[in-house]
């Protein structure tokens, strides 16, 4: 383990070294990948196929393709090419996770605190991940708005943001927001809410406040436009907290709700019906298998772990069959990491679902096209198709095999992780006196 940490440290140090030279990062967005086993995800698998990428977009898929002059050719030698992995729930590449001082903080925006220097980005790239939905934490009943990033390591933060993705707002229910696993400090009051009923009531009351807020503004705009506006007409106070909730009610934001147990998910579905807002997915959703009919009727998917259940009371009835079973019942399921470490082995996590009843093709979808659909970017990424962005990962063996490893990660035709090149650089650096220079 210690050796591993040392190695990772050296790997990352090397990266800083590369950032200064950076020539290998700027491949220019044109590539020809030859002789790969292409796992297209949405179509058939193509053995010995070629993929031509021009300006970061997949131009051609076929056999015996030729590259225009000057385009870099990557020889895959039959290795497996899959769409870049998409993590639908993580907290990497951010300067903060929770604004934990209040149970209701929709005014905070994760897109404003992206930290492109976070080395977890590189860790993720080493596992074939090209896109993440990086979120506010689950400390609050209503957290903040989340952001979708492409892991363009070395680029400035603003270039990572995927503007085409759904704008989403984090909700959370259960033990984290009740703070039931915290030691209460003497003299400090328990934060409201302390129960699941409380969380539900709080969301309802906040959304009702947002409705009043919208009405106040509507009333003001109406008066302003009227023929004889009152002499002393003043606009209402702009409240960023309620502005965000108003956007949710107007359908401009989609809820992503951290929930574990079936009843709290049912409650939240009821709230969404009552107030007319849209739910993108339930996060973790350990008991989703109990309510597949209800979720399917509501058209709500889930973003889950594969098999790390029972780590707290509300996860006690989680089962490793959850993802597979819900997929078979017709729900849109994705596997997430929720971690800067697990993120580099999401392909292993998805692979485990084969044991629990999915085919390899179905398992692959959990971390590619399904995730893209949940984030609203399936027309851009999530599969290998002509016209889609060239976010790709090359694996030594089938990515759902336990023996595979990621060899290369590509975003929009630029190589951001190249295991072979990195090992060579590492060897070169270690022969120099003092390692790095």
């Amino acid at each position: 383990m210690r050796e591993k940490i040392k190695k990772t440290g050296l790997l990352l140090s090397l990266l800083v070294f590369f950032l200064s030279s950076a020539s290998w990062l700027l491949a220019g967005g044109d590539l020809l990948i030859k002789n790969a086993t292409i796992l297209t995800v949405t179509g058939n698998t193509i053995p010995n196929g070629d993929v031509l990428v021009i300006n970061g977009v997949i131009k051609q898929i076929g056999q015996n393709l030729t590259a225009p002059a000057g385009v870099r050719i990557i020889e895959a030698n039959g290795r497996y090419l899959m769409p870049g992995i998409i993590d639908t729930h993580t907290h990497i590449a951010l300067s903060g996770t929770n604004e934990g001082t209040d149970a209701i903080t929709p005014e905070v925006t994760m897109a404003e605190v992206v930290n492109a220097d976070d080395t977890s980005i590189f860790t993720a790239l080493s596992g074939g991940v090209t896109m993440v939905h990086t979120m506010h934490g689950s400390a609050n009943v209503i957290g903040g708005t989340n952001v979708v990033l492409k892991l363009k390591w070395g680029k400035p933060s603003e270039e990572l943001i995927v503007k085409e993705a759904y704008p989403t707002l984090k909700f959370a229910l259960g033990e984290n927001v009740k703070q039931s696993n915290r030691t209460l400090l003497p003299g400090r009051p328990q934060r409201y809410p302390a129960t699941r009923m409380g969380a539900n009531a709080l969301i309802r009351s906040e959304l009702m406040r947002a409705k009043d807020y919208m009405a106040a503004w509507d009333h003001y705009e109406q008066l302003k436009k009227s023929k004889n506006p009152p002499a002393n007409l003043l606009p209402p106070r702009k409240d960023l907290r309620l502005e965000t909730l108003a956007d949710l009610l107007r359908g401009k934001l989609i809820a992503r709700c951290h929930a574990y147990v079936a009843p709290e998910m049912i409650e939240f579905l009821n709230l969404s019906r009552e107030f007319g807002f849209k739910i993108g997915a339930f996060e973790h959703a350990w008991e989703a298998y109990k309510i597949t009919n209800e979720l399917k009727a509501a058209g709500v998917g889930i973003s889950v772990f594969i098999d790390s259940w029972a780590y707290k009371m509300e996860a006690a009835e989680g089962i490793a069959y959850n993802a597979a079973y819900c997929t078979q019942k017709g729900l849109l399921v994705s596997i997430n990491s929720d971690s800067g470490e697990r993120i580099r082995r999401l392909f292993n996590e998805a692979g485990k679902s084969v044991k629990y009843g999915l085919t390899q093709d179905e398992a692959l979808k959990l971390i590619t096209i399904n995730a893209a659909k949940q984030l609203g970017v399936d027309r851009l990424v999530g599969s290998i198709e002509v016209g889609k962005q060239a976010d790709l990962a090359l694996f030594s063996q089938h990515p759902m095999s336990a023996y595979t490893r990621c060899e290369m990660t590509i975003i929009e035709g630029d190589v951001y992780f190249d295991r072979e090149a990195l090992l060579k650089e590492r060897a070169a650096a270690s022969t120099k006196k003092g390692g790095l220079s």
Partner: protein
Amino acid sequence: MNKYLKKMQSAFVRPVAMVFLIIVMVVMASSLVSSAEAGSQAVKPAYALVNCRIFPVAQPVIEKGTIVIRDGLIEAVGPAEKVQIPEDAEIIEANGLNAYPGLISAHTNLFLETKEQSQTAAPEDYLAAFSQPTEPKELPWLQIVEKVKPKKQTVEAYHRIGITTVVVAPHEGIFQGQGVVLNLNSDQVNEMVLAQPWALHINFTTERGVYPSSPMGTLAFLRQKFFDTQHYSQHLQRYRQSPQFLKRPEYDPFLEALLPFVIDKKPIVFQCNNLEEIKRAVKLIKEFKLNAVLTGCNEAWRVSQQLKSASIPLLVTLDFRPPASSVYAQQGQATREKAEKEIYPANASNLAKEKINFSLTSFGLNDTNFVKNLRAAIKAGLPADQALRALTIEPARTLGLDKQLGSLEPGKIANLILTKGELFDEKTSIVKVMVDGTLFTYEEKGQ
């Protein structure tokens, strides 16, 4: 003779002498009173610094020149043959010495009680510590001039590194309060003040336990306060115009304190501790059309293109420690130390290459580290003349004091330093310092 004198004493001299004595005593007493009350307003002597090499900053170097100082101001600067030495001036022979304008550090926390000192004694048991209420430290109305406690020792230490003017900024909370510009002429605050208040200081800090406690919470909090100030101002104005049939706005001391800065566009200083904070500040400044200055900025070179187009004055610290969020700080001590030694010192020279104007500050550094790091920045490629400008005329402009400070020109405040050797050289020592025309003489190092 004796007889005659005695006669005179008794008949004439004695009353005259008495009157004379009384007059002398009254004059002495009144002069004592006036010097005690008026402080720097008392007339100061005239000096003529002769035969020195002058670096006026605004003009080319004068190889052998004279500087005349009268009553705290520069009366004349020029080549020896062109400047007449006034008869009443005390001549200071400065042959072999270099004269520079006094340096300005436009961001310090000098003369303030540190956090450790201000903490009250620890409660007897730890439970009591937890039960103490956590008060938010948001004090936009705070005038740091009221908290400043100058110490002679510190003033001297700063003279010895050439600094004659400092901004003292508050250092707690997000809306930290309002800073002051001080001339290091003594240890009497009122005599020292050059500009008060100078600006509102904002820091993207996150204090645990109180809202906001995260970077994104801090941004939302700042934005909400700016919107609230706009709304408050709108309501106040309307109420002043026509108070009838309009409910009065509730008095809000927080927003009152922000009005001059958010509405009347007095300067706001944003402390930017890493490159992302620079971007966040620039975004807020544009959004609310603020008149702002960025301070800290030791990763400014990483956002040079954005800074170039934004043209916001920069106060760049010579603190080279990589911020915790930086890629250079996340990979162990060796990488961090390497970055501190080799990458961050080149910040200023990189900005200079991009033709971005900036001032240098001693923010986060003590006097020894300031000199050490200044030399490191020059070694990393910053031209010495640009370093001098970044510590004189540039900060004077940013502080709106370029008519009084920042160069050796007639009419400006007599803040200057005399050195043996060129200012930033390793072996150079500062032998004389003049602040507001008050002369301080220091022994050379090692003597």
